[in-house]
């Protein structure tokens, strides 16, 4: 079975895959970029941001969670799907408070980079301006919740890798928000440490090391020198601290 060649078509091109791969994984492995935000190669796919949406045999689905199946017809770069992905990224900008020019993460931010990749130039919709207080209680870490896109990567990393359960989500619908594992609700009262995996997975600028914000100057950061697709295809998933893919 293993040496039998299995393929599906992606916008008309044959893509080979191995059993167990999702459509997104197979596409990346074959050199085709699929925009994504909540996907991280080290974690089980989550399927929440929907930025990786494709059509499989005419049916809309998240490519990061859909198993690749031989003979499937997958559409990725049609005008409809490009519009849809762009809309979803605009939704995420609309939902939070993103002021990129003053954001420490600018240039290392996957949301921003995917936005550029998809031609997003504004939030387009009326911003929701949610009220999300910053948590600066921790001596070494700043929690800038205004930028959270609710991808749960920190939740997953803290639970599955760090075994600490520092982060979780509460609320639902548009009031869904990140909470930390302390009765006070303050990050300082959790056992988060700067070595934790949860410190390095946030695709945007929420979980930030204090006093490091501008160590790498703007202009030299990951997505200043590479596009989101280059980083994704390199198998790495920026941002890295030194700005290299």
């Amino acid at each position: 079975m293993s040496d039998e060649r299995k393929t599906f078509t992606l916008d008309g091109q044959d893509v080979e895959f191995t059993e167990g791969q999702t459509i997104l994984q197979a596409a990346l492995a074959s050199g085709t970029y699929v925009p994504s935000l909540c996907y991280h190669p080290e974690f089980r796919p989550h399927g929440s941001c929907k930025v990786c949406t494709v059509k499989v045999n005419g049916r809309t689905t998240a490519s990061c969670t859909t198993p690749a199946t031989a003979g499937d017809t997958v559409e990725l770069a049609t005008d409809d799907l490009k519009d849809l992905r762009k809309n979803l990224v605009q939704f995420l900008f609309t939902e939070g408070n993103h002021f990129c020019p003053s954001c420490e993460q600018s240039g290392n931010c996957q949301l921003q980079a995917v936005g550029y990749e998809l031609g997003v130039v504004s939030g387009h919709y009326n911003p929701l301006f949610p009220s999300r207080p910053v948590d600066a209680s921790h001596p070494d870490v700043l929690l800038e919740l205004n930028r959270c896109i609710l991808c749960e990567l920190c939740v997953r990393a803290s639970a599955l890798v760090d075994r600490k359960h520092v982060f979780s989500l509460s609320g639902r619908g548009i009031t869904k928000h990140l909470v930390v594992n302390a009765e006070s609700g303050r990050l300082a009262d959790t056992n988060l440490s700067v070595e934790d995996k949860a410190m390095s997975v946030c695709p945007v600028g929420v979980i930030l090391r204090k006093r490091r914000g501008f160590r790498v100057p703007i202009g030299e950061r990951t997505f200043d020198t590479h596009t989101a697709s280059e980083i994704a295809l390199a198998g790495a998933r920026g941002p890295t601290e030194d700005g290299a893919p």
Partner: protein
Amino acid sequence: MSSSDRDLAAVLARHRYDGTRLVQILRDVMDPTGYISRPTITQVAESLHLPRAHVEGVVGFYAFFSSEPRGRFRVLFSDNITDELAGSQELRQRMLDAFRVDPDEVSRDGLVSIGTTSCTGLCDQGPAMLVNGRAIARLTPARIGAISSLIRGGSPVSDWPANLFTIDSHVMRRDLLLSAPLRPGESLAAAVVRGRQATLAELRASGLRGRGGAGFATATKWEACAQAPGPERYVVCNADEGEPGTFKDRELLTHHAHEVIEGMTVAAFLVGAQRGFIYLRGEYPFLIAPLEAVLAERRALGLLGRAVAGCAELDFDVELHVGAGAYVCGEESALLESLEGKRGIPRNRPPYPVTHGYLGKPTVVNNVETLLAVAHLAKHGGAWFRAAGTPKSAGTKLLSVSGDVARPGIYEVPFGVSIRSVLQDAGAKEPQAVQVGGPSGVLLAAHEFERKLGFEDVPSAGAFMVFDQTRDILAVANNFARFFAHESCGFCTPCRVGTTLGRQLHGAHRARQGIPPRRQGPAARVAAPQEREPLRARHHRRQPRPRRAGEVPPEL
């Protein structure tokens, strides 16, 4: 140990310190208004060895749990469109004025808070409300007055006059399933005598498809579960009935509970399950005690427990789980998450519940009505059921008819009947449009009334809401937009953000329409909140409530 510590310990012991019972535990530790304090969350988490943030996340997910103190009386008006058309917003305003509070605000003396909740499933006898979790139907200005006085008097809701809480039953048309009730144990005995394979063959021959909405063939689902590897299996009765405008499962669990549970037991026999759950929506607390009584009766009759109905291989029992205000928990995989004590977020599929369901074990989830049909066809056989309905939609369907009709209630009709014939049966005068299947369904205008109910044409989980010529259909759309925004679980971006943008768009549109309120008679059209004069201006100056974390400003 304080008395509240003792109460908490007793609750936890009753639930065997079982973290999968977290939603049930939280229901029992919350105060009558739903409030669960931060220290209580910490204690529950520590006792169950769960991360505190996880418990906080579960509290934050369900609408009936509140992490902030509420008034001692927490009033929630059903925000269903048929209630709205019957004047619920005026009634709510009357009550807000009487207590001089804004929506969702706690009165200064801490006595009362007044808000809304999604459809409470009393559309045939609306407007309705929940007070500290208890349902009151048939609201009128007089009833609102009486309830306001009782609240002022301060006596606990449990001491209020019983007649306030009566729920009526309106079965207006009976067919295959509702005409001849089964004796407890009757169809189970028939299934056991016939045997597993032969009964499955009858189920297949019946052509029964799920009544919860998707219409999946029941026999196919059960065979897949029966064939899934592993010794443990589960049967879940989906009694979440969250789709606005649907109330037939309420009726079935009130008057046909034996037959529904018998259907679950037949399912257990066919798939080889040992445990079952009824997931009852939190809006139906009046069904908890009667259902527990039916379960006890069936245990006493040997119809639940060990060697059920004398069948040595059939050990099966059923537990009641009660939801806490979340429409999405009607979706089967979200329901399973909730049953496991988590936030009700749908799972990524595959795998499907038939192979990886409750606690990852093979599970069948079925609607109440599907299970009732199973009980009947296990006795009468597949052909009996197949004789009614259409080629792709065998049997009958229970419709929950509400809105502008003379005779709202439950109608059991054979599949294939036209929309028009249901409208005539129910006494609809000058119908403008019908919403079939609730907000998730379709709106049919007069030129579509010859269309037929059934999977071939107009599928439906049973809601049938009628709007006459005087109604503003944009008010209907506005209500639905509000519903979806309120009930989005928030997992995926398009739904989480899109439903809120949709609601805001509707709100802005209505505000700018400038249609004077009550243009079409007292009950016909209700002003959206932003069209009304702010309460503050009329009564006294009050600072706006500070926004909670994560909260988004209301309509533009």
